[in-house]
């Protein structure tokens, strides 16, 4: 029988806050254990810094703009298959257990497509998600392999891990307000200033949510072991995006395309067939997960997939040739209710990243940012000048991609709106012809 597949994604989990990615705190003993027995991609890049576009892309291997999944109200248009559909059509029993902000990942957004069983609820805790998953595992008959997607949302703000995890990394009583979304939005709006100590406390609160989530991932693994499925299950650990802690002036996510928001953990665990304790440095994209699963299951890769299978990198030598990852962010007033934030974050930005460089482009302002990721991995020193980019392949790669993405389906709607407004102005006599 084909092996089971369990895709675990953790909302808002930045890679560098996990032990297996070098974090100094013991936030993630269970994930680290999977990492030790699996393949860790050290530089996996999400295609957007917030949930809807990032997971839409991860589950389809297409870019968020071409899916039309870039806005707070975006819904799959039915034209793009999710990995669940491919697997369902090929004999897998499929189930999703998903906790999310608002209704972002609920069936009405199209995320339940291809799932035989789907639970998508607003902000329920990991223990409740697990309970749904365990019930399903208990009641299913075992004659087909299963594909299970589990998405935990606990690490997303508010950061307020339940007992005993609220004391995982501190003895002191941290002011609960520091972990509230409302407080952190206040920071973005410039209404609240965090002292260095408060920032540390905010990070502690965040880390404790990771610790809590890791514990429940441990519970899920125990469940798989108890039911005798663990050895025949490919487990993938990933995330939709990271979180900012003032590295570039912002907090939460959705405001920029720096690595603290885009570097996600990516771990493949399947000791039966995959090597143990393997580390891959070359960058990959979250969009590569689906092609990898397809190849793993022996299914042909559709031509319109944007990602590449990582199977060869896992089983053989990593593919070290130069490649680009891409990410997109649209924060307009059409979107996200971010208008309440400071104006400087209202923008549409496009990013291309190689192993050594990052280029960020904001078409409206025709502005670029350019970083040397080797000398300046924290992206603090913008090297952009037109001369510096002269003949750089990354510029061509970014602009090519931008040109493709710019013509996204959802543009037609915006064009209509603009045309409507222009027609109105013309009727009023402001413009002519």
């Amino acid at each position, binding site marked *: 029988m084909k092996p089971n597949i369990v895709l675990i994604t953790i909302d808002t989990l930045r890679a560098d806050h996990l032990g297996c990615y070098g974090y100094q705190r013991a936030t993630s003993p269970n994930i680290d254990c999977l990492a030790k027995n699996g393949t860790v991609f050290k530089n996996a890049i999400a295609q957007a810094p917030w949930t809807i576009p990032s997971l839409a892309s991860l589950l389809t291997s297409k870019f968020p703009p071409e899916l039309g999944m870039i806005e707070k109200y975006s819904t799959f248009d039915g034209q793009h298959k999710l990995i669940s559909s491919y697997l369902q059509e090929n004999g897998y029993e499929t189930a999703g257990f998903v906790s999310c902000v608002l209704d972002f990942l609920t069936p009405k957004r199209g995320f339940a497509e291809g799932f035989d069983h789907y639970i998508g609820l607003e902000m329920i805790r990991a223990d409740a998600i697990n309970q749904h998953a365990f019930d399903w595992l208990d009641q299913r008959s075992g004659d087909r392999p299963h594909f299970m997607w589990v998405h935990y949302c606990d690490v997303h703000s508010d950061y307020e891990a339940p007992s005993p995890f609220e004391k995982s990394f501190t003895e002191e009583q941290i002011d609960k307000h520091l972990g509230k979304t409302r407080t952190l939005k206040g920071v973005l*709006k410039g209404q609240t200033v965090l002292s260095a100590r408060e920032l540390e406390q905010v990070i502690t609160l965040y880390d404790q949510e990771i610790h809590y989530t890791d514990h429940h991932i441990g519970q899920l693994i125990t469940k798989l072991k108890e039911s005798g499925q663990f050895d025949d299950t490919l487990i993938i650990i990933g995330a939709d995006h990271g979180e900012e802690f003032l590295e570039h002036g912002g907090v939460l996510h959705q405001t920029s395309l720096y690595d603290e928001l885009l570097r996600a953990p990516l771990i493949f665990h399947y000791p039966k067939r995959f090597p143990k304790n393997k580390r891959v440095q070359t960058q990959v994209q979250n969009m590569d997960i689906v092609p990898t699963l397809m190849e793993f299951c022996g299914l042909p890769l559709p031509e319109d997939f944007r990602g590449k299978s990582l199977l060869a990198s896992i089983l053989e030598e990593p593919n070290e040739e130069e490649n680009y990852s891409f990410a997109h962010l649209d924060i307009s*007033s059409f979107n996200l209710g971010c*208008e309440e934030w*400071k104006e400087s974050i209202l923008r549409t930005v496009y990013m291309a990243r190689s192993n050594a460089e990052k280029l960020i482009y904001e078409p409206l302002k025709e502005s670029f940012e350019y970083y040397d990721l080797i000398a300046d991995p924290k992206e603090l020193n913008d090297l952009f000048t037109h001369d510096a980019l002269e003949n750089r392949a990354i510029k061509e790669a970014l602009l090519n991609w931008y040109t493709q993405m710019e013509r996204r389906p959802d543009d037609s709607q915006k064009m209509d709106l603009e045309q409507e*407004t222009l027609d*109105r102005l013309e009727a009023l*006599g402001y413009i*002519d*012809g």
Partner: protein
Amino acid sequence: MTTRPKKLMVIGLDCAAPELVFERWRDRLPNLNRLMNQGIYGPLESSMPPITVPAWACMMSGKDPGHLGVYGFRNRKDRSYDNLGMATSLAFKEDMVWDHLGRRGKKSVVLSFPPSYPVKPIVGWSTACFLTPNSQSAYTHPPELKVELEKATGPYIPDVMNFRTDDKDNLLEQIHAMAKNHFDQAEYMAKEKDWDFFMMVEMGVDRIHHGLWKYCSPTHPRFVPGNPYENSIRDFYIYSDQRIGKLLELAGPETAVLVVSDHGARDMIGGICINEWLIQEGYLKLNGPVEGLQNPSKVGIDWDNTKVWAEGGYYSRIFLNVRGREPKGIVAPEDYDNLRTELTEKLTALGDESGNPIGTVIYRPEEIYKKINGIAPDLLALFGDLSWRAVGTVGHGSVHTRENDTGPDDANHARDGLYIYSSPQGEVPASPHRAALYDIAPSILKLYGIEAPENGAGKTLDFF
């Protein structure tokens, strides 16, 4: 020590005409009349061009269009021929009055200020202007205000959505519904929010002028006495005055009040087909035959043989195709000024169909702006000093047209808008007092004890 009023309420009436408010209908407008009697008022010289965008933005930033880099609703983004960008709120980078106030902790309510779509964050509350595509759009700051307002006043009506109609009853209905919606919103906000500065802009006056002027203006060539719409504009002023009265009650006696318009209105006699004229005079050459009425760019412009082209609208923006500046420029840089002089002379001499002078005024941007950002027109042409509109399309077969090619519209803008200022501490001045739109921002800031921003185009009015 002079005491200053604590708060200011600005009521903007787009296109409100001084002669109508100060003279013709003054007796029928009790609330505005009271303000005039208590305070100071007069004509308010508009920006050049005197057009909603950029005029309001000039008024509330104190900067001229050159400084703002916005010369109308559509602006050339670069020196190429076809890259016109629409001037939304994003085109404006300069601080407005409420930005200065916000930095000092003062809260503003700003409603339907043009252009304010897409909506930008301010300290306080705002709704976006008539560029808001429809009532579903995100048009409030903060975003949750949308639900609150709609609960109180119903769905937002950003503009008259179907202006190009011959059904005047329907048009009037739309204009009244829109104005009611905006005044309802204003009353709600004035009452519910703890504001230091309040401003609303109502577009209804502008829309009713453009839609029904010829029915109401006895001097318009197509005016018919006794027609059923003869009092429609007057009645709308009366309605607006009533609603202003309610707002003044809500503002309270301690609040200073400024009623203001961005420009006035005047009879539109006809149109000058500027591109037809440029073709006739050999400045502009098209690639192919014209089918019906078309924009020259749709027909295709033979840039290798074109020295000058123009955009139409209430006024005309005239561009020279300069070598080394435009992609296929043919006017030698050393001939640039001579050609502008030649065009100015010919166009000012161009009269109506019978050759009677119409009083066209041509400006060079460097004469009227302190600074020039973005891409300014090489000449700004006000045909008949705005009594003739500028028609950009070709295919009319003549330079003059008496039909507006973009739909019913019998009013053009006049250079003078109006202001009425009444302060609880104010003294009553002797006679109407002329002021300029550029003076408004520094004067408002003075009320709040804030210095005028640098590089402003106006002065601080001493009676503020």
